[in-house]
């Protein structure tokens, strides 16, 4: 009996040590480079500029009120977010549809918690872009969502995240022109956002974000 107790204690100590390693593992931090000042930047405001949001029922956070989400087992770990993005003049300039799904490349040792994030981004009178991004949500989960939302810790205030973690070289998202003047062009993108409000009591979250696009300097220049 004593042996079993010692073995169990050892397992718990070992698991806790591994959990600490995972929590502080620097390999799972986002490593996307700083956006370049010449990038074209579109920005958004959540929830103010959300056109629609549907979440798979399997990824609803515990305690969330039951909503009508994606219930089919093939898509119950996905999400669909539609939002308006503003241009440099702070006026609405684009509409994006983001199809999201948990990524099979998620790895708590090497890459973090990855979400496959596919954007269809239309800028009226210019065309449509397709963005393929791997977004690492682990820093947000471990620094903010888990401690504040689930463990009731006080929120330390606005927090900045740059979730883009690939699949392009140096951890940038891959952009492909789909229609209009963007057709046939390729480029990269980086997303960052600032969490401005998180209130578990009222189940509210607010953030402002930016999408930095680089798609052929002569085709898509800053401030156009």
């Amino acid at each position, binding site marked *: 009996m004593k042996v079993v107790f010692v*073995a169990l204690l050892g397992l718990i100590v070992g698991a806790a040590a591994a959990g600490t390693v995972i929590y502080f593992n620097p390999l799972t931090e986002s490593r996307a480079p700083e956006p370049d000042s010449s990038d074209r930047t579109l920005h958004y405001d959540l929830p103010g500029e959300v056109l*629609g949001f549907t979440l798979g029922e399997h990824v609803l956070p515990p305690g969330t009120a039951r909503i009508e989400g994606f219930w089919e087992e093939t898509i119950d770990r996905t999400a669909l977010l539609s939002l308006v993005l503003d241009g440099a003049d702070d006026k609405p300039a684009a509409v994006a549809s983001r199809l999201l799904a948990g990524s099979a490349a998620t790895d708590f040792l090497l890459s973090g918690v990855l979400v496959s994030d596919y954007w269809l981004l239309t800028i009226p009178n210019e065309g449509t872009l397709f963005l393929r991004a791997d977004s690492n949500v682990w820093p947000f989960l471990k620094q903010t969502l888990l401690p504040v939302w689930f463990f009731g810790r006080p929120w330390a205030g606005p927090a900045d995240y740059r979730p883009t973690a690939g699949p392009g070289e140096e951890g940038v998202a891959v952009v492909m022109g789909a229609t209009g003047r963007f057709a046939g062009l390729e480029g990269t993108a980086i997303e960052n956002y600032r969490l401005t409000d998180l209130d578990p009591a009222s189940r509210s979250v607010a953030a402002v974000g930016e999408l930095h696009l680089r798609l052929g300097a002569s085709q898509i220049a800053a401030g156009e």
Partner: protein
Amino acid sequence: MKSTFVVAVLLGFVGVLAAGHFVPWFPHVRLPSKTTVVANGGRGEQFIIRLPADRIAATGTSSAGLRVPNAAGGASLPPDLAAQPLLVEHFKVRDSSNNVIGIAARHWSTDASGTGTAWSLLIPSRGAMLLTAPGEARGALDSALQKAGYSAGSAWNGEVKVALAPDNDNAGVVAAGSDEFSGLEGRYTEVWTLTGVTDVGELRGTIELNTVTRRGT
């Protein structure tokens, strides 16, 4: 006793790290792919959207007509965009056996060179595809329905087929993909078969996306 504790600590430590590395944390349910072999090479796969059940939301300007009915659930565009010719639609996607297998977004817009359509299809267990084509004429579905006898404000039943990406000009292109769809090249057609419109303007029918792809060089 001491060695038991040390071995248990090591087991706990290695076990949790191994789980963090090897466990598939997002196991998406996968149904068998309903692909067919095409006679002249490549593989064919059909994706189906049933209206109105599979429509998640639609957002667009008034020129979008019946494709943005009040019942579609989409939010309104801000005034700065509401004047632009733009139509954003979101759907669930089924395979040819009628099983829901993914979600999709369809964007239609205009630019200096004309109109353009882009589809983003996400099948979580397999990856994503980008389909592009020249866009249909504004109000194409409404025009076809009116020719078949539909009038606004009243219910209509019948059958109208509208090819928004027809197969006669090979205009619809499978432009990009990820994961299982990575490196595929090919064509697609998009056909809307409308069998009814309710008195509140809700479309009934199916959208068929037929893809023919092959491994790129």
